[in-house]
């Protein structure tokens, strides 16, 4: 992907530039944010097992700065909805999302969270995007841990393109 102007990581050479780093506020803040996305693990079904694998040593989400799973919505940045969202749970998920401080993002992990999956049923919400805005959808039932890591990397790219004023940049 071609970086847009605001996402360019400014090259830095201390021999030429001394102890001064020149950048834009957007780029700096987004760099802080995207490399330290603290997840809110909304584990609702079997996808949560894969989510745990992502957090464990073999896949190690810490490599991407997201190892700090916060069970308090006040301290987390990205809600990973891992599993089947039933109607009984739906408004609780929305309430927890509402309690998260801005800026905040959502990953819908797996078929159920994305679309209701195989549960075309009276009991299951047909995709968590019916109640909260979703940034990244991950296919799979459940997705492999690598797929969730890929989603996280894609989310980091997305976060890097956002404006600190909350205005999304137009696609270049």
């Amino acid at each position, binding site marked *: 992907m071609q970086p847009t102007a605001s996402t360019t990581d400014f090259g830095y050479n201390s021999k030429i530039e001394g102890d001064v780093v020149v950048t834009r506020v957007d780029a700096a803040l987004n760099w802080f944010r995207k490399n330290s996305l603290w997840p809110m693990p909304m584990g609702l079904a079997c996808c949560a097992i894969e989510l745990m694998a992502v957090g464990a040593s073999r896949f190690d989400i810490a490599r991407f700065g997201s190892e700090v799973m916060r069970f308090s919505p006040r301290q987390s940045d990205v809600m990973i909805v891992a599993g089947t969202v039933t*109607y*009984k749970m*739906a*408004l609780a998920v929305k309430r927890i999302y509402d309690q998260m401080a801005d800026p905040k993002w959502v990953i819908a992990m797996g078929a159920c969270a994305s679309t*209701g999956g195989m*549960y*075309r*049923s*009276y*009991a*299951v919400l*047909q995709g968590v995007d*019916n109640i909260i805005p979703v940034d990244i959808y991950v296919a799979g039932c459940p997705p492999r841990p690598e797929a969730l890591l890929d989603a996280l990397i894609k989310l980091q790219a997305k976060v890097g393109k956002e404006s600190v004023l909350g205005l999304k940049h137009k696609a270049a």
Partner: protein
Amino acid sequence: MLSPSVFICVHLWFHFLLNVAAIDFANQLKARFGDLLSEPAEFRGEATLKVADAERIVEVCEFVKKSLGFNMLLDISSIDNYGEDPRWTIVYELYHMEQKAHLRLKTEVSEEKSELPTITTVWRTADWHEREIYDMMGVRFRGHPDLRRILMWDGYPYFPLRKDFPLSGKPSDLPDLAFTKTAPLEGGPFVTVPGGKDALAREPRVRIPQTESVATISRLERRDDVRPAHEPDAPQPNTAMPKP
């Protein structure tokens, strides 16, 4: 007067020798209650009896537990015989842990009544089983200590495992608690057919249930890909992969 140890030995020996089968227990039960119960049926070592009057289920269960020694209630399930009377069948699965005997009691309840006595007084574990039946089928258990819904939320207006409840659900809304919407079935449900000759014949897709309904048959006639699964004698479509 026998000493306790002798008594225990005799007791163990008695059980070992006797090895009472479920059908023997069922016959004892039948002998005790007579016309209230049907003739016991045996299938794969398990015995089944029908209890003619659901109101007397408690005294039957008490005898089964206290005199016959069925110390475990495995499950209570319910059947919706939609379109028939009585509409509900309640099935009690009982287990004798010492004799490894499985006994099944069935009783029927009409739709108008939709109520029968609780057996939580006999096996306390019946509590959640009866709550689940109330939640899913809407059959009430008189005398239950806490007859609330167990899976759906209080205030949900339907009983979703009834045969006349659509698979896709019905819309409902309880502000600040929960809402439901109708699920998109896209002509489904998508089901597999066991025994299809290849993966194409077996794979999940829209299958028309085998019914006498005119609407269903006319739909079926338009579906050459589905029909063979329902009419084994009909000419099979050519599902072979084209040669490269």
